[in-house]
């Protein structure tokens, strides 16, 4: 049939463009072109699908596309850059939900499939549901709606039995001729619950890795749905995303020195952190904005270490203003970015780019760590765990072994911090108690504004 041939050819082209787009997105020079290209392909795929023979419910379909697409487009347009990670989680969860819904329709309709397709149908349903509910929990945590990490007693056993139960029921339904509505509902409730219990004990610091993992899950679920619907575009796009998502997850986990296994099965918990804090000796010492300003103004090299705290305070523009002011006075100012600064690898680069900081002032951990001893000041703004020296020294610490920025090796360390609380992971920071470290209390925005005012008086 010609219309079928036309659709298949279009799907083939679309899949090719997706892969090329993804390839382009992995290089800074072509990244923008990549997403635009993939965007056109998506529109083409959607339009072509309307020509599928024997398509019913077209009115309802258009309504769903306009509503879903519209709401997401608008929310994506207005969301602040700092809140990007949770939006990615939400959209990812929606994709997983869509894959789970496709499976639900197939089950409710009682379509007959081969054993292989039935298995993939059930697997896709479980993975999609887990991605959906897991992403919802991830969103709630990053959005601050759910601050506590809840660890159930016997967590690993619960996970294990729930997984077993879900797969067992799923396969029973998948292979039976006419599963009852009750069984199907129960199956999806179990699968959704599985996503919740998997993500709920995971601490905030590990969240980016989890989102990336759930992203890979959704890709897989979509790929499996492709086998069910006999749609190669879905298969290839889904599996490609699944595989690249797995690789990305590994890269992120490696940057944090936290094997994926540890993140899922032994998350950083509050109790471990609390036992840690008592060992830190000494006290934190404060310094004034004036002192901070003169230390930097009359130094030769300042390394700024921005963290999520800076982004939340919206202080990146002020920080860049200060950096430019210092540079005018002949001070060398560079930015050091930890791989997991912000909420995801690369997030901080996005935020600094937004403030107009040029690339060549931004350095990775490996590039900058040897320079700290030559720096007069390491200015830590809203970062905490990524500069905690216990990661190098204290084997009992949950973050032991994580690569950190060696801020403590600078001549002077100034930490801009809102209060005396511990970091995102709840671990006490030994850096703050060091002899060469001074605290500049206040919100990043206000504190840096004070420093700028002081630096200006010194230039006259």
């Amino acid at each position, binding site marked *: 049939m010609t219309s079928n041939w036309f659709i298949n050819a279009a799907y083939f082209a679309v899949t090719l463009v997706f892969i090329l787009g993804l390839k382009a*997105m992995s290089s800074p020079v072509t990244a923008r072109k990549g997403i635009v290209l993939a965007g056109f392909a998506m529109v083409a795929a959607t339009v072509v699908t309307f020509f599928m023979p024997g398509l019913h419910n077209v009115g309802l379909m258009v309504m769903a596309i306009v509503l*879903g697409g519209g709401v997401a487009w608008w929310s994506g*347009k207005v969301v602040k*850059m700092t809140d990007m990670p949770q939006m990615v989680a939400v959209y990812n969860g929606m994709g997983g939900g869509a894959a789970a819904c496709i499976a639900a*329709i197939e089950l*409710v309709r009682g379509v007959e499939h081969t054993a292989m397709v039935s298995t993939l149908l059930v697997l896709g349903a479980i993975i999609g549901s887990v991605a959906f509910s897991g992403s919802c929990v991830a969103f709630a945590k990053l959005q601050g709606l759910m601050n506590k990490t809840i660890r159930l007693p016997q967590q690993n056993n619960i996970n294990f039995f729930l997984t077993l139960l879900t797969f067992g029921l799923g396969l029973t339904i998948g292979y039976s001729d006419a599963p009852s509505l009750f069984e199907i509902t129960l199956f999806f409730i179990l699968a959704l619950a599985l996503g919740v219990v998997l993500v709920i004990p995971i601490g905030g610091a590990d969240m980016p890795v989890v989102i990336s993992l759930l992203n890979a899950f959704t890709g897989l679920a979509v790929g499996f749905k492709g086998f069910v619907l006999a749609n190669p575009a879905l298969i290839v796009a889904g599996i490609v995303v699944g595989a690249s998502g797995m690789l990305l997850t590994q890269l992120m986990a490696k940057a944090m020195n936290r094997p994926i296994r540890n993140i899922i099965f032994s998350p950083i918990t509050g109790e471990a952190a609390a036992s840690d804090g008592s060992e830190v000796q000494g006290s934190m010492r404060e310094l004034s904005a004036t002192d901070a300003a003169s230390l930097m103004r009359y130094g030769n090299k300042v390394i700024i270490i921005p963290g999520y705290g800076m982004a939340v305070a919206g202080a990146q523009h002020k920080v860049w203003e200060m950096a430019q002011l210092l540079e005018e006075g002949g001070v060398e100012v560079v930015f050091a970015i930890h791989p997991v600064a912000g909420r*995801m690898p690369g997030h901080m680069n996005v935020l600094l780019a937004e403030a107009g900081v040029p690339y060549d002032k931004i350095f990775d951990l490996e590039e900058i760590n040897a320079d700290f001893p030559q720096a007069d000041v390491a200015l830590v703004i809203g970062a905490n765990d990524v500069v905690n020296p216990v990661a190098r020294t204290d084997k009992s610490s949950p973050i032991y072994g994580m690569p950190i920025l060696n801020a403590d090796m600078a001549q002077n360390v100034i930490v801009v911090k809102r209060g005396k609380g511990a970091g995102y992971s709840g671990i006490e920071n030994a850096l703050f108690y060091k002899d060469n470290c001074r605290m500049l209390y206040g919100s990043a925005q206000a504190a840096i504004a004070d420093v700028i005012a002081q630096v200006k008086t010194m230039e006259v």
Partner: protein
Amino acid sequence: MDGFTALYIFMLAAFTGYEVISRVPVILHTPLMSGSNFIHGVVLIGAMASLGHADPDEPLQLLIGFLAVFLGAANAAGGYIVTERMLAMFKTGNRKQGGAQ
């Protein structure tokens, strides 16, 4: 599609995904995650096919189908706009300005 063909496709697609992004720099991790999140939004066309073949007289099928298309469209649209916004920032990130100020 028979089982082995499916397995071959799975294998090749998996290697493609792995290879395509294997040399991505850290600064692009987040945009790339977001971009791949957009690409699995292609689930939308599967959802459309599902809703399109649902029985118009079965409200439950229509409801789930509607939900599938709604979620798929949101995944695609949201994933696109968020990725585009992130990458647009890199483009205007005055790379040429340089450090000689």
